[in-house]
């Protein structure tokens, strides 16, 4: 079993059909458990009060926003190198989810920033790079929508994704150089001594798992829809010919 088998859309459809409901159910379960646990059964922070609880949406969505772009980069490479059709479709399916995640991260960040920093928005490096990431997503989706021929669109957006990744990373560090900010450093990492206390950490992990599963489920649904749409298009064309 290798991922190359799933370049065949039929194979992809038959394999993902039974997996999909499980993904949806699991992500719903994780999200409900994680959010309810996080919102109602964790203590308030001693300085931030209950506003700290927005972390259960803010952090997972911000993580996903970056990781979805990374996933699009990988799928774009696979498409460019091996002409793996489902891979291109998955990249296309992931982009709007990425936009949504970036928006959620920005909005929850603003809502959190208002009581904590006293401002909705600051030109802080992390905030600014997220805004730039949002613009990259917009450009990517706009390019997909603008081109009629699906293969040309897949090729061009893949090239854009590769170049965009380089510039997104460049912007990230350029922005760091430009302004030192308000945002705290990473509070979750595997190699540091100091981490968030376990009471917050475990529900947060459940929430992150929920967001990852939600993303997988959404991408599967969107990819399957796209494959069906193409089949429909092919059938229509055939009928018009016949």
């Amino acid at each position, binding site marked *: 079993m290798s991922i190359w088998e799933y370049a065949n859309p039929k194979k992809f459809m038959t394999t993902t059909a039974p997996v999909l409901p499980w993904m949806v159910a699991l992500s719903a379960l994780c999200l409900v458990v994680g959010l309810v646990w996080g919102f109602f059964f964790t203590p308030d922070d001693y300085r931030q009060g209950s506003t700290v609880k927005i972390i259960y949406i803010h952090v997972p969505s911000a993580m996903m926003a970056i990781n979805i772009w990374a996933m699009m980069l990988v799928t774009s490479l696979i498409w460019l190198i091996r002409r793996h059709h489902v891979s291109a479709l998955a990249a296309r399916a992931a982009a709007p989810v990425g936009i949504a995640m970036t928006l959620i991260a920005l909005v929850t960040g603003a809502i959190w920033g208002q009581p904590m920093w006293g401002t909705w928005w600051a030109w802080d490096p992390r905030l600014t790079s997220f805004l730039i990431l949002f*613009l*990259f997503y917009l450009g990517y989706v706009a390019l997909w929508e603008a081109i009629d021929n699906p293969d040309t669109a897949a090729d*061009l957006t893949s*090239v854009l994704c590769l170049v965009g990744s380089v510039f997104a990373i460049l912007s990230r560090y350029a922005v760091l150089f430009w302004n030192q900010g308000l945002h705290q450093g990473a509070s979750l990492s595997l190699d540091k001594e100091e981490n968030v206390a376990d009471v917050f950490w475990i529900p947060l992990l459940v929430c992150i798992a929920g967001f990852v599963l939600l993303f997988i489920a959404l991408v599967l649904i969107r990819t399957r829809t796209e494959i069906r749409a193409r089949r429909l298009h092919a059938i229509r064309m055939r009928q018009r010919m016949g």
Partner: protein
Amino acid sequence: MIRLFLRDLKLAIRSGGGFGLGLAFFLIVTVLVPFGVGPESGRLAAIAPGILWLGALLACLLSLDRIFALDYEDGSLDLLATAPIPLEGVAAVKAAAHWVTTGLPLTLAAPALGVLLNLPGPAYGWLVVSLAVGTPALSVIGAFGAALTVGLKRGGLLLSLLVLPLYVPTLIFGAETVRRGAEGLDVTTPLLLMAGITLGAVALLPFAAAQALRINLR
């Protein structure tokens, strides 16, 4: 390749529009800024580096779609693609021609517009240097964006949406160089970083642009 370069220069100068239009646009943007923010010279001096860089960037953006679109429409891009020179070379040469017809005049005109915005004395040299170093990156990145959107009917707006995020690092370092120059600080770091971006973009992006052109000409 030299002939192609000269041909592009001639076309840009003789066909009217593109050559002077960018400069005029730069002038108008700079003139409009004081109407927007008020005429106090202190405030203008503070924002002048950013405004001048932003104006140059937008003027550059304005003429990007001319890089490939005209040649695509009359079919000469197909001829260039089948010509013995590599398409990467074509993309690089066209970006260079674009720089000579927009980036270079903008660089030379920028100090004059700096006077309008009351730019502090020591910053003029750095303004010219930073624009001279940074605008080639703008042209090459723009050529890549133009190559992506060349086959589209209304590519202009999409082109700006694609290209402007890519301009962010260059803009940050460029404006930072001028700002530090205006305050008499050390400008080496941002200038070197911007030079790095320019060199990297000039070295790599023609390949991406050529790839995009090949896809569009398929």
